[in-house]
């Protein structure tokens, strides 16, 4: 029940296309859903985050869509660029300190 399931494991998208990564959870106590971006040899960095009282949050080309009833959330990257090539992790937490991480998606944007 503490898991966050992330798919796909890897994704190849053409430059200019839309990249979509999906996550699902079971624990309805989760109240914070961040996405982290990690480049090779670097630590993860927060990309965008959402609370469950909001169905969508957009920051530039990055959008989180949140479906509370389905217990799913997804990251959409519009107009994907080669510089977006990285590993993306979804995560979830509740009042506890701990982040529950998805397994990660390795995204490759082809020029």
């Amino acid at each position, binding site marked *: 029940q503490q898991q966050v399931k992330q798919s796909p494991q890897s994704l190849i998208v053409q430059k200019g296309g839309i990249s979509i990564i999906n996550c699902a959870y079971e624990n309805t106590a989760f*109240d914070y859903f961040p996405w982290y971006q990690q480049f090779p040899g670097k630590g993860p960095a927060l990309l965008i*985050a959402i609370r469950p009282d909001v169905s969508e949050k957009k920051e530039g080309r990055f959008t989180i869509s949140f479906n509370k009833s389905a217990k799913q959330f997804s990251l959409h990257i519009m107009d994907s660029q080669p510089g977006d090539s990285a590993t993306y*992790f979804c995560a979830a*937490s509740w009042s506890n*300190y701990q*982040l529950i991480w998805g*397994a990660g998606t390795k995204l490759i944007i082809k020029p």
Partner: protein
Amino acid sequence: DAMVIQNPRYQVTQFGKPVTLSCSQTLNHNVMYWYQQKSSQAPKLLFHYYDKDFNNEADTPDNFQSRRPNTSFCFLDIRSPGLGDAAMYLCATSRDRGSYNEQFFGPGTRLTVL
């Protein structure tokens, strides 16, 4: 710029030889975390400090210890590294615990065990 700094970036040790990794932060955050990340996996939380209060994860091996002598510094000690401890070790900080507190990560220390 405020940041999380980890030293060294690369560490090679021998099987069973103790090693210490260090982390410092200029963010003045209350919470400091140590994560272990193996290739193609998500970071795995080992423990965290909330101010001086140490919080160990239930499945963190006794081989891993930590010290936080002051707000800015935190150390990860691996008493007897095994081959399975080869990984990237990430330090992170947050202003407080709980939801909505962004965690800021350092660049990591890649540990090789020979």
